[in-house]
């Protein structure tokens, strides 16, 4: 049964997918740099307001994942913001997030070199989204 993105249900599935990924467990084992938050910008009428996703990642484990306000998301040490269509491209595996940040398709608040050091972990986090049966609100 596909779950809509973004939603509480989708975020719960995402947490499960991250923690089920043996590859992420290895690639992210040295990650101790705190929360990565994602902000999906509003796309009326399918998404009326900006939505934040809080990912509390530590040493290869996702300890907590939940929907937050964009303001709260912005308090995370790393916050990646993008339009709905950009996130859709990431989830579909069509947009590599680091390239997206370089090109301005995604916006990063935080230290890029730290993210880049964990490029394999970032790839595994993206792969985990691919494993979720996602329903996009505009499809």
């Amino acid at each position, binding site marked *: 049964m596909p779950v809509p993105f973004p939603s509480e249900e989708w975020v719960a599935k995402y947490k499960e997918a991250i923690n089920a990924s043996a590859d992420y467990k290895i690639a992210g084992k040295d990650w101790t740099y705190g929360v990565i938050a994602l902000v999906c910008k509003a796309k009326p009428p399918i998404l009326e307001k900006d939505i934040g996703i809080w990912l509390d990642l530590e040493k290869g484990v996702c300890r907590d994942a939940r929907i937050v306000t964009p303001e709260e998301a912005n308090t995370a040490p790393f916050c990646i*913001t993008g339009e709905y269509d950009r996130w859709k491209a990431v989830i579909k595996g069509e947009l590599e997030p*680091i*390239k997206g*940040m*370089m*090109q*301005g398709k*995604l*916006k*990063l*608040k*935080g*230290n*890029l*070199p730290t993210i*880049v*050091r964990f*490029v*394999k972990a970032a790839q595994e986090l993206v792969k985990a989204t691919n494993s979720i049966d996602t329903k996009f609100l505009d499809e």
Partner: protein
Amino acid sequence: MPYSRELNFIHYAPTKVIYGVGISKDVAVELNALGCKRALLVTDRELSKNTDLPKKIREYLGNNCVGVFDEVIPDSGLHLVDKGAEFGRSLGADSIVSVGGGSAIDTAKGIAILLKEGGSISDYEGFQMLTRRQTPHIAIPTTCGTGSEVTYVAVIKDWDNHRKLLFGDYNIIPDVAILDPELIRTLPPRLVAATGMDALTHAIEAITSPQRQPISDALGLHAIRMIREYIAIATKDSDVTYRGMLLLASNIAGMAFSNAQVGLAHAIAHTIGAKYNIHHGLANSIVLPHVMQFNNEVVYEQQARIAEALGIKEDIPDKELGYKASEKVLEIAKSCDLPTRLRDVGIPKSELEECAEIALTDGAIVYNGRPISDPSEILEVLIKAY
């Protein structure tokens, strides 16, 4: 060089580039064309102390200059950006003119953010976070290697925590780059050579980057042709024609790598530059041939085109041609009397392993032509360069 069906890219190079011997005299005209009349001049401390270049630019600006911030040091710091911005704000500056090398231009990019947005520069660490154009900025490079006058990144050091912060945003690309060969006429030969080799590294790594694309390739290849032709003579002869060509090549290479990124040579140069205080261009120059040999297995087609741009005309397979490109780069460095071994610049062999570990964590690694996942691969390059 074939491109895949999946090729997609953004090429962004909005800077107005102005070139000519003595053209920096036009700085006030350019400033006024941006709608500005109150520029803060940002420059290097050493440049200000040892040359009359900042003074000259100030004169050219006339009443359009409200003050000079000349405290920039190599590897500029967060505290300097904050201080420069506060100074600019107190003077009511509406624009910035930077004069110097990469540190001065990067500091000015940081000040440009703060004059527009307020706060402290550390609040803006990140990529593509800004939503509007920043304070108008005219960059006037006085070296021929940085390319920073056309790039979207500023590297500023956090001296308290010993780390470099990256600020990358299309909104901080300088509005105007004034390339005046007269300003690099008095640059010491070794600096001409080292910064020229930095530009060559920018061009080569842009062409071998996984993010390469036809426009950046075209820019990179032409920059290589120009550097090959002029670097040795511009090092030995301060004639503005030769040095001007090198200055232009650096600018063109800057446009290439700002769009395609750089790779392993830069990751190593950042590491040994920070650890042993080795000039960035020189560090690139030493490791580049060895990085190219390491990469050749994967990017030999690109390196074969680089070989052609370097003037090698041999009817041999691309793999061999790609390798020959690395030999040619080494030959160019030697022709400029630059050291070509890591041991020549005082790096202890016993610390190469540590250098490899650190280089693996540098952002540039992601864009190396040959994927790297283990420090032992970098160590192999370092040992060869030793």
